[in-house]
Structures are given as structure tokens and as C-alpha cells.
């Protein structure tokens, strides 16, 4: 029997900033869902904040979502800010040497 990977999200809007609160584990099973949530917000040209305080695990697929979001933001003259990254996720971001590329706060 397959276990279901749980990733949930909540979006808040304030001025020109959309904040996506992601929750759970970000792996290959949920990357399409994550992109469906994040990329349309980026395409509006708004600044998008990704709050990862409740993301306990992220693998290379999740890192790809962060890179794609960041690059899409550059195309639309805006930015994606990655906020409140947990220690375990930060380790993966640093392993990919992306801490200077992504906007981490």
C-alpha cells in the first residue's frame, strides 16, 4: 500500500506580496503540486515569499522548485524570497550551493 505524501499550503496576500506557507515534505511526489501553487503567483509579477518553517524535508526535486520559482521571478522582474528555512532544509540548500543564489531570509 502506498503512503501518501502530505504537502499542504496556505496563501496570504498583503499589498504586492503573496506569501505561500508550505507544510510537510517536498519530494518528487508533490513537486508538480508545489509548482502549480507557486508559479502562477510569480507570473502575476508580485513578490512571492515562500515560508518553509513547516517544511521538514526537501530533496533535489524540492530544490528544483525553488530554482524554477527564482528563475521565473527574474523573468517577470520580481523576486521570490525563501523565509524561515528549517535547519534540515537549509543543509540541502547549502549542499546545492544555492544559499547565495536564492533570496534567503
Amino acid at each position, binding site marked *: 500500500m502506498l*503512503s501518501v*505524501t502530505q504537502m499542504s499550503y496556505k496563501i496570504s496576500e498583503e499589498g504586492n506580496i503573496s506569501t505561500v506557507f508550505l507544510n510537510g515534505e517536498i*519530494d518528487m511526489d508533490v513537486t508538480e503540486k508545489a509548482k502549480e501553487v507557486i508559479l502562477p503567483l510569480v507570473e502575476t509579477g508580485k513578490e512571492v515569499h515562500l515560508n518553509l518553517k513547516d517544511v521538514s524535508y526537501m530533496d*533535489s*526535486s524540492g530544490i*528544483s522548485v525553488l530554482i524554477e520559482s527564482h528563475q521565473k521571478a527574474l523573468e517577470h522582474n520580481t523576486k521570490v524570497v525563501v523565509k524561515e528555512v528549517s535547519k534540515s532544509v537549509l543543509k540541502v540548500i547549502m549542499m546545492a550551493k*544555492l544559499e547565495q*543564489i536564492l533570496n534567503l531570509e
Partner: protein
Amino acid sequence: MDISESKDFLVHTASLKEVRTFSRDVFDKLNLNNDLKDELVLAIAEAAQNVVKHAYKGVEDTSDHMQIKISLTGDQLEIGFYDKGKPVVAENIQHRKLDDIKPGGLGTYFIKQIMDDAVFKKDQQQWVNHLVLTKKI
């Protein structure tokens, strides 16, 4: 403490969480520190993801299973991955350059960063691919 545990998983992205849970459960028995445990779980998850993504590329809803075997003998950790997907050509596997920032191509890099060695063995009749990751812990 020596240990050897294996488990079969349906080849599907929805199995990846189960792979991580199995791995964490085994490493909990070994009393590894959390940082090392997280790294090893990531390496295992990336290798399992590669089975789904590459060995079974283009295959929808297979009923095939892959097997993961975690063994510790002394201080030598060995993790075996067995699958019946398309044969992997080890020479063709390479991660992207880190300064070429784009989505994808990092899983193999993570595995190489975390583990001491990653070798495809041609020693199986029952399976097609047999990847062995090793690390001295």
C-alpha cells in the same frame, strides 16, 4: 551493532515517503546522530527517486517493485538498490555543474556528497540494476 534489513517498494513517486520512513526506522535502531541520519535518508531517497525517474522513465503505473537493503557490518554501511527497470549505463550518469543553475540534475550530486562510493554491480540474475552505496560511519 550489525544489522541487515530490506524492504520492497512499488516503483512510484508515492513510495518515496515510505522509503524515507523505512530508512529512518533502520537508522533509529543504529542510534545515528540526527545530522548523519538526515543525510543518509536523503541519499537513499535520491537513489530511489532515480529508479522511478530514470530506470522507469516513460513507464506509467507499473506493478514492479524495487528493493532497498540497508546493512551495517562493523563501521561499513552498505545500501543496495535493486530494480527491474531499463538497464542503467553507469558511464552516462553525471550531475549538472553546480554553477549552471537550473532545475534538476542534483540528486546524483547529493548522493556523491553524502556517500563514500556509489557503484552499479552486474551481479544479479533476478534484477536488472543493482546500485550499491557505501559509507564508513
